[in-house]
């Protein structure tokens, strides 16, 4: 009982302080704002804080998978452009990845983001390691990989703690 009484008194104090502060800003300084601003702003802030955090809560392993997948895409797309003969034919590979290779050849990667995570890595296993090494030495587009790395890791870190001081 005592707790609720104290809490109500505290809320009254806060309301009264808020009213006093509001009045000083509007009456003495002439500052105004749109109607219902605080209610709208509260909703915007909650949306921003909670929706953004839900969308950002991607497990780290998924970021890593995305990075490797991006490297895989860069590699395979580049193979299909510069050395198309090195990709296996549909008849040479197990049916489980036939669709993947088909999609790679049709450059239809952007249509399915889960394709990127799962199938591309499987498909990349069917390219010989020596071909990959040779290709890295000759054609690798480093920027693509670096950009992906920056997008998925460094920018996330930068949005963290860069305060002036706390």
């Amino acid at each position, binding site marked *: 009982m005592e707790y609720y009484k104290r809490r109500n008194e505290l809320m009254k104090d806060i309301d009264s302080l808020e009213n006093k502060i509001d009045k000083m*800003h509007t009456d003495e*300084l*002439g*500052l105004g704002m749109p109607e219902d601003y605080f209610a709208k702003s*509260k909703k915007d802030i909650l949306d921003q804080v909670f929706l953004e955090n839900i969308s950002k809560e991607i497990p780290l392993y998924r970021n890593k998978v995305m990075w490797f997948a991006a490297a895989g895409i860069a590699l395979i797309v580049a193979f299909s452009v510069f050395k198309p003969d090195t990709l296996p034919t549909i008849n040479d590979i197990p049916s489980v990845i036939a669709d993947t290779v088909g999609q790679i050849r049709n450059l239809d990667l952007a249509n399915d983001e889960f394709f990127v995570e799962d199938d591309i890595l499987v498909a990349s296993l069917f390219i010989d390691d020596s071909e990959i090494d040779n290709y890295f030495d000759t054609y690798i587009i480093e920027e693509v990989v670096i950009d992906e790395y920056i997008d998925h890791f460094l920018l996330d870190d930068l949005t963290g703690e860069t305060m002036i001081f706390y």
Partner: protein
Amino acid sequence: MTDESDFIKSLLNQKEKAFKKLLDLYQKRLYWHIRKMVITHENANDVLQNTFLRIYKSLPGFKQNSSLNTWMFRIAYNESLRFLEQEKKKRHSSIDDLSKTYMNHLVADTFFEGDVAQLKLQSVLASLPDKDRQIFQMKYYDNLKFHELADILHINQSTLKTSYYRTVKLIEKNIENVELFKETEV
């Protein structure tokens, strides 16, 4: 005190309900604090959103070395400074130059509804050095205590008191003689 500890615990656990409560308690006060720093409503709205986002992200690192109130005001103050720095870079000018255009920004703000008396007071405030103006506004309008100001601004309390009382005297002296502001080219 148990209430506050429980509340902080809920916040540290990133509970949505606790964060809503925090918004209810601080949204207005932080808005007014930011508004006086960045002047226009539109800018204050952006900085307020960034402030609460920053508060939410920084909550796990809140060590409770200062009160929640002081900690949040410090974040709002820093976010406002960060905004002013960005403005300075955009305009290739110094924060001092921005302060010179204080009145231009204020009068250009759709949500400034000041009459002659309010314009006079704003003109006197605009003529103050930035730090003195901030100290005065945070003490007088934001209702912060000197020890809280000392924590937020990292300035010792005697310096703050000297600045505050000197500013009060200056305002009293100048308010009658101030020339009414006329908008100029920025």
